[in-house]
């Protein structure tokens, strides 16, 4: 090893997102979107309408949540999913309703998609007893377990082995259910993923491990925190893998359906990288100096909701007026949710001690 001057020694790679050869270096490169039409994918007009409504609901829910947060209606962290809605929506439409989903703290979109109502979601953000987790969890811990949404988790990578465990139980019981786990590009660097991948492959667990690569882990571009292509991690474990364009709901739907079928049939895990983009900061207190405005604008030009809307109009699935009806309905649903959350009660004082143990009168040390 040739000796370097001390000042030239470097460990972590320097920032990307800078201008190179006249173009912004992107956090992620998107694979091509599917060319298939909705009918080729087996999606009816009604399904398409439901998809659009769901994506719009996720978007407006979070935009309103952000306003309420800024007004001081609730505290804690608020990590917004805005920009990534095609991932949750395409996946939930591709899975069976009793397949398991577990995700990280950026979980509002997932919860809404799996049946948490706007009311229950907003009330949880406000920390009210009417929230989906009864005000105990807040933004990071939405859950709806009777709809097989096992919740959002706040320790990066912590829920990945748990997904393996959900799949283990499904295989054990031979119940035809599969499990899916969603986590960020940042979580790829945790040992928990690698231990889980090895065991999932060794034990043939029916699980899909999905990286939602949105280009950044907090303020660190993916290329600065992890080596090579994320999807290639699969090779080391001889695991089936795929890369999906996460800005296009059809692409997510098509591929996730195919993969889910394969997992169900063969009881074998998959490792999937879905490339997407988050429009907002990591959380509400992020000045976002690590990326260029141009990069953000480039993604907003290929916005997944706008894209679906354009498709729907071009293919005359719905008219402008029908779209507007959906938008108005969603808008109202969310305004109502804000009111519902505002008017709901906080949990009762004694609830502080509830949900700790299974028994009715558990022991607490004093």
């Amino acid at each position: 090893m040739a000796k370097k001057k001390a000042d030239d020694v470097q460990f972590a790679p320097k920032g990307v997102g800078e201008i190179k050869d006249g173009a912004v270096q992107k956090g992620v490169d998107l694979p091509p979107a599917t060319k298939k039409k909705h009918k080729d994918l087996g999606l009816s007009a009604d399904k398409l309408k439901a998809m659009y409504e769901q994506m719009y609901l996720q978007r407006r829910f979070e935009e309103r949540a952000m306003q309420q947060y800024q007004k001081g209606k609730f505290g804690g962290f608020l990590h917004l999913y805005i920009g990534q809605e095609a991932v949750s929506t395409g996946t939930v439409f591709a899975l069976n309703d009793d397949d398991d989903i577990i995700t990280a703290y950026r979980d509002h979109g997932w919860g809404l998609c799996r049946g948490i109502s706007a009311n229950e979601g907003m009330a949880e953000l406000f920390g009210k007893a009417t929230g989906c987790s009864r005000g105990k969890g807040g933004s990071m811990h939405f859950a709806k377990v009777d709809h097989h949404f096992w919740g959002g988790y706040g320790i990066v990578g912590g829920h990945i082995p748990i997904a393996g465990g959900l799949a283990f139980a499904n295989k054990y019981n031979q119940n035809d259910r599969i499990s899916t786990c969603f986590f960020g590009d940042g979580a790829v660097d945790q040992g928990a993923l690698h231990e889980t991948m090895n065991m999932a492959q060794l034990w043939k667990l029916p699980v899909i491990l999905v990286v939602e690569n949105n280009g950044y882990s907090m303020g660190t571009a993916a290329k600065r925190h992890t080596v090579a292509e994320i999807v290639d991690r699969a090779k080391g474990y001889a695991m089936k893998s795929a890369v999906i364009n996460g800005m296009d709901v059809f692409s997510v739907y098509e591929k996730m359906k195919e993969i889910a079928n394969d997992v169900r049939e063969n009881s074998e895990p998959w490792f999937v990288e879905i490339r997407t983009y988050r429009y907002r900061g990591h959380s509400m207190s992020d000045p976002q100096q690590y990326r260029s405005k141009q990069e953000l604008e480039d993604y907003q030009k290929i916005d997944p909701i706008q894209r679906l809307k354009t498709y729907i109009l071009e293919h005359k699935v719905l008219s402008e007026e029908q779209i507007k009806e959906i938008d108005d309905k969603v808008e109202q649903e969310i305004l109502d949710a804000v009111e519902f959350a505002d008017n709901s009660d906080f949990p009762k004082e004694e609830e502080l001690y509830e949900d700790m143990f299974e028994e009715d009168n558990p022991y607490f040390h004093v």
Partner: protein
Amino acid sequence: MAELQFREAIKHAIDEEMGRDERVFVMGEEVAEYNGAYKVTEGLLDKYGYRRVIDTPISELGFAGIGVGAAMNGLRPIIEFMTFNFAVLATDQIINHATKVKYMTGGQISCPIVFRGPNASAGQLGATHSVSYDSMYAHFPGLKVIYVSEPDDAKGLMKSAIRDDNPVIFMESEQMYGMKGEVSDEEDYIIPIGKGKIKREGDDVTLVAHGKMYHVAVQAAKQLAKDGIECEIIDPRTVKPLDLPLIIESIKKTNRCVVVDEAHPFGGLASEIGFLIQREAFDYLDAPVQRVCLPDVNAPFAKNLFDIWFPSPKQVIDAVNQVTYRN
């Protein structure tokens, strides 16, 4: 004296030590290009470059261990955890390796390393982001544990921690980073590890409180003073080694003690201090030692529940009333 924010006091200490010892370097999530998740390391990358200020992936176990190895091999790492709640992933390296390599190699290896970051809760962040870990680390032989409450202590003790030849846990708080305080501008300002401080003098009762709880104790003492009760507040600053003589001297004067601790009650600093006082000053006690801790329950998100969960000046006042038989 200079007025500094908590975060600035820590940064000045790190900066001074990096300036005087080239073996000292900083490593952790978002510490370099982002200038620190809580801006404690702001400007250090510009000043010391990519060799000595290093962004890591979210790999707590890995980078804590790389720190331990580098320390064994002659460097003096400062490992930042975004919070000690995430350092739980790194405990294998801290507890099984950093604290034990010297002993099990018969003294051949040294491990001079500082693990630092915010400890305990920071408002409504839910169950996984709100635990106070100082008592847990203090349980293990081979670690020094510091949890400071004011900028001046932060500066002096951080410098000591970096110069210490052993593994040191140095704890801060998200909610204190913006807090301002007078910091000594003495050149090379050092506070020795293991020395507590009487921060308020009083004859009626001794309050032992550190970290964020020190400020809760101060509020309670102010209220109680209006009622003619004068609290003596001792901030141990270092959890381990604990400045027991300072506490015992105070008990001999006040004959009463309330320990305020942000940990859960079982087996924490509060119970340890309670035990030590009965062993060392049994005959001086006019009332059983009381403690104010977190309840034996996870952190709730809801604001109203969080406010009940978190120790309050009111609880400290109640405990003082109990040991002074005023209720």
